[in-house]
């Protein structure tokens, strides 16, 4: 059955702004307003606004909330302080990835996780079923009530600072604070998916429109503009940030995806631990690597990666990278051919196009590490 597409509280304002709307993970979202390349460059040079309200938010609280999350996620939730954010994964017992997420510690016994839009129902079923016996961990799916606006780029701090009732410059990277922005209550999180400095603002759905407009108005002189999902994808690809459904999914494990840094085996038991430990000790059969193409033909999801004419891998994400001005891609390749500098090929429409495994990120990140 075809389910009707869902719309964020900002749908109307996107259409009015002339955005091209496309289906994305069950939602009708803006892919671009003017041009993906222009929007990408605006984020790197100035500041852009992203409607990411389609993402899901779950809250969990109670005396067993921490234990429930330690069991469900791969990173060490015990190391997470109140006011801090953690990138993490939900895994299946075989080490495959259910989803990637950001985890917020709202208080000693209160947390929020942000999950991918297309995975909300799957993740909700997974986390609630897997912690059903923990009466001391109460889950709440607040996705529908929550809007999320990302403000990203070198001018993000100045823009959000003008509208916030608190000093946002004092919020460190992967930290957050509560505050009013443009008069509405927000969770102000110094995170993002672009490699630029910036914030993600969680607000009530009813406040989204006013906040969006206030950000655009206040940022007009600084070049603030709305950015679609197209540029969000090229920005994150240049950073090598994984995209669920492309670079990671139920068939990939964290070690081969290069996400071993968010797997804390020392923390004790969690779902997928044994399988991930095995891959880690034996060494992964394949690895996710960055590829730079010799010409501008685009290596797209699903194209075979070649070594001396033999298929040794598969492209998971690929695009023209506007900041590097090259065609770039992520691909799983056999570990034997995964070293940086390895000359490879990508089968593009039956032709082997030269590619090289390169160091990632493709473009240097400019996130603000210290407050």
């Amino acid at each position, binding site marked *: 059955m075809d389910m009707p597409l869902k719309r964020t509280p900002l749908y109307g304002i996107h259409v009015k702004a002339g955005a091209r709307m496309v289906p994305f993970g069950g939602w009708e979202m803006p*892919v*671009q307003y003017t041009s993906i390349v222009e929007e990408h460059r605006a984020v790197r040079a100035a500041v852009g606004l992203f409607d990411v309200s389609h993402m899901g938010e779950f809250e969990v609280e109670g005396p067993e909330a921490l234990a429930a999350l330690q069991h469900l996620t791969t990173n060490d939730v015990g190391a997470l302080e109140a006011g801090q954010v953690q990138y993490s994964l939900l895994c299946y017992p075989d080490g495959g990835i259910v989803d990637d997420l950001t985890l917020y510690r709202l208080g000693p016994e209160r947390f929020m996780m942000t999950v991918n839009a297309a995975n909300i129902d799957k993740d909700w079923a997974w986390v609630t079923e897997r912690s059903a016996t923990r009466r001391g961990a109460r889950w709440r799916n607040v996705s529908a009530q929550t809007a999320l606006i990302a403000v990203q780029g070198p001018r993000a701090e100045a823009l959000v600072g003008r509208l916030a009732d608190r000093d946002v410059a004092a919020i460190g990277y992967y930290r957050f604070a509560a505050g009013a922005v443009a008069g509405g209550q927000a969770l102000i999180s110094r995170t993002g998916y672009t490699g630029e400095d910036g914030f993600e603002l969680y607000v009530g759905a009813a406040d989204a429109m006013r906040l969006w407009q206030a950000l655009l108005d206040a940022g007009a002189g600084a070049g603030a503009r709305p950015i679609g999902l*197209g540029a969000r994808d090229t920005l994150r690809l240049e950073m090598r940030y994984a995209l669920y459904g492309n670079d990671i999914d139920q068939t990939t494990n964290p070690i081969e995806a290069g996400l071993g840094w968010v797997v804390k085996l020392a923390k004790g038991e969690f779902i997928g631990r044994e399988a991930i430990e095995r891959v880690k000790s034996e060494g992964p059969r394949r690895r996710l690597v960055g590829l730079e193409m010799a*010409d501008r033909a685009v290596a797209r999801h699903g194209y075979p990666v070649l070594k001396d004419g033999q298929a040794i891998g598969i492209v998971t994400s690929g695009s023209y990278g506007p900041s590097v001005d090259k*065609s770039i891609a992520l691909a799983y390749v056999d570990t034997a051919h995964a070293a940086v500098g390895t000359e490879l090929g990508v089968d593009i*429409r039956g032709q082997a196009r030269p590619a090289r495994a390169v160091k990632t990120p493709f473009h240097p990140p400019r996130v603000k590490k210290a407050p």
Partner: protein
Amino acid sequence: MSNIPTDLRYTRDHEWAKREGGNVRVGITHYAQEQLGDVVFVELPKVGAKAAQRQSFGVVESVKAVSDLYAPVSGEVVEVNAQLGKTPELVNQDPYGRGWMIVIKPSNPAEWDQLLTAKQYEEHLAQGPH
């Protein structure tokens, strides 16, 4: 509304054709480039290649998608726009001018009359998304 010059002929697949002496210059329409978005790569045949009406003669890649290019008429490719190798964005900037793709020496002049006029192409676009 899309820019549809009246002195050109069109295909249903959004290529334009322009008569120049005995030859036909080919590109994609304003509407097509707008739908594709930022063009980042154009793959074209070599001079001397044979083009066949309604068959693919190359591809155009935008950031998000890859699309075939279809020949409006059959014949020999006598010129190729080499500038698109370095500056594929010309297709977006000037689809009817510097963003042209190939010139064909037609082998069957009757095919010209099968192409859409500007008015027919406009009607074709008005029928909805393609």
